[in-house]
């Protein structure tokens, strides 16, 4: 991960609902019962002999979200088919969780805004400030808080079982999202944010700046104390063509780069999980200190990425998910060979699919990917 040459290319697949398919569970079972999700991950890690995994990549435990009353998830087996992964349901522009004239309130007091304005809108149970408290309102905080503590504590045990059971280590520790992404994802919605970027760009920038210290704080609060495992940033819609190059430079990157630099100053790497295609922004990422990030490639061109930033950062990913779902084992092996030959000759590469591996991936293709790299990826 520090862009050096190991004995062999490490395998670190971000396996989500694939683990359910392999272990014989439905999506509902691993999404709603995290112990089943944990056991599925352990089974896969042991059977495939992976080097690192996420303790539960079906990360949204819907038992918890249901306890809080969060209304933006489609829960397998309840709202959608039990065999479909959970879905995030972005509200329409007029029903956005934050209104276009509420930026000043967010900027003035982000934490207060979340508790007092945002949470009552995203929860079926939490009532707005000033309205009469209800049984379900009170219970939402109690059940939600205890469930969250229960879930986070369980990850510690899960990571220990993975280490002892199969020698597999946790791939990530801590969560980060870019200020602009979180405004699109959970506050204004993507359409609303796009309108704001045109109509009130200074407010958007000020809101991103107001969020920065909080996002840094949460990222560091979950970071690996030994500083071996990276904090992950889940990168969503902050790239061209979702926003313009100017908006990327002046808002997205201007309010993310200082967070990454501060995290690196404190000795932690960040895994850039660049969902989609971020190739238009490689020169910006190259501004970061050497080895400060691991750059994960989804739909981007991994060979172009390697040329642009491979001398500075370790890369991961680049194995096409469509191939894992619809291709043959031979095609998967060919793809792995091309990626290894193209970007991993001198180390600095971690094997993974481009995107999170869901239950459409074929077991024989995941096996082919893993086994091929184990043989061909030895230095």
């Amino acid at each position, binding site marked *: 991960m520090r862009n050096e040459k190991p004995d062999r290319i490490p395998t670190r697949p971000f396996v989500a609902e694939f683990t359910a398919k392999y272990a014989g569970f439905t999506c509902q079972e691993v999404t709603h019962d995290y112990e089943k999700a944990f056991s599925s991950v352990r089974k896969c890690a042991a059977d495939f002999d992976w080097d690192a995994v996420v303790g539960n990549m079906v990360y949204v435990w819907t038992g918890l979200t249901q306890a809080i009353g*969060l209304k933006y998830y489609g829960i397998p087996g309840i709202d959608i088919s039990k065999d479909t992964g959970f879905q995030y349901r972005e509200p329409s522009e007029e029903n956005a969780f934050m209104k276009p004239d509420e930026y000043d309130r967010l900027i003035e007091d982000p934490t207060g805004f979340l508790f007092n304005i945002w949470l009552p809108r995203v929860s079926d149970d939490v009532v707005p400030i000033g309205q009469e408290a209800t049984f379900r309102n009170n219970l939402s905080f109690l059940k939600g*808080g205890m469930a969250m503590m229960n879930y986070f504590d369980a990850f510690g045990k899960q990571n220990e079982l993975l280490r002892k059971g199969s020698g597999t280590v946790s791939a990530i520790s801590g969560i980060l*999202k870019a200020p602009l992404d979180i405004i699109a994802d959970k506050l204004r919605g993507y359409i609303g944010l796009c309108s704001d970027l045109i109509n009130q760009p200074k407010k958007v920038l000020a809101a991103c700046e107001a969020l920065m210290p*909080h*996002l*840094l704080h949460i990222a560091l609060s979950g970071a690996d104390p030994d500083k071996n495992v990276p904090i992950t940033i889940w990168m969503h819609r902050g790239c061209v063509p979702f926003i313009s190059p100017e908006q990327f430079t002046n808002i997205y990157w201007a309010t993310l780069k*200082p967070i990454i630099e501060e995290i690196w100053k404190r000795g932690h790497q960040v895994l850039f999980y660049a969902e989609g295609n971020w190739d238009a922004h490689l020169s910006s990422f190259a501004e970061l200190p050497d080895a400060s990030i691991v750059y994960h490639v989804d739909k981007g061109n991994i060979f172009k990425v390697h040329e642009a930033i491979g001398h500075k950062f370790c890369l991961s990913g680049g194995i096409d998910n469509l191939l894992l779902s619809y291709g043959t084992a031979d095609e998967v092996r060919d793809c792995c060979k091309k990626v290894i030959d193209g970007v991993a000759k001198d180390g600095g590469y971690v094997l993974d699919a481009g995107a999170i591996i869901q239950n459409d991936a074929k077991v024989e293709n995941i096996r082919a990917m893993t086994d091929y790299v184990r043989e061909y990826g030895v230095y």
Partner: protein
Amino acid sequence: MKNNIEQKRPPGVCIPWEEKLKELPEMPGDAELAKNIWQDIDALGYTYIWHCLLSF
């Protein structure tokens, strides 16, 4: 990282100790202990809401 914005509640805080302190009588015991425990537990509330936003 520069932080040019003065916020009512800094990172990690829901109800600042200074605000809570005004509600308390003069303490005969260890005020530092009271402050530390208040801040530790208060931070759990902060963790809750920000993880609702970021993780769930």
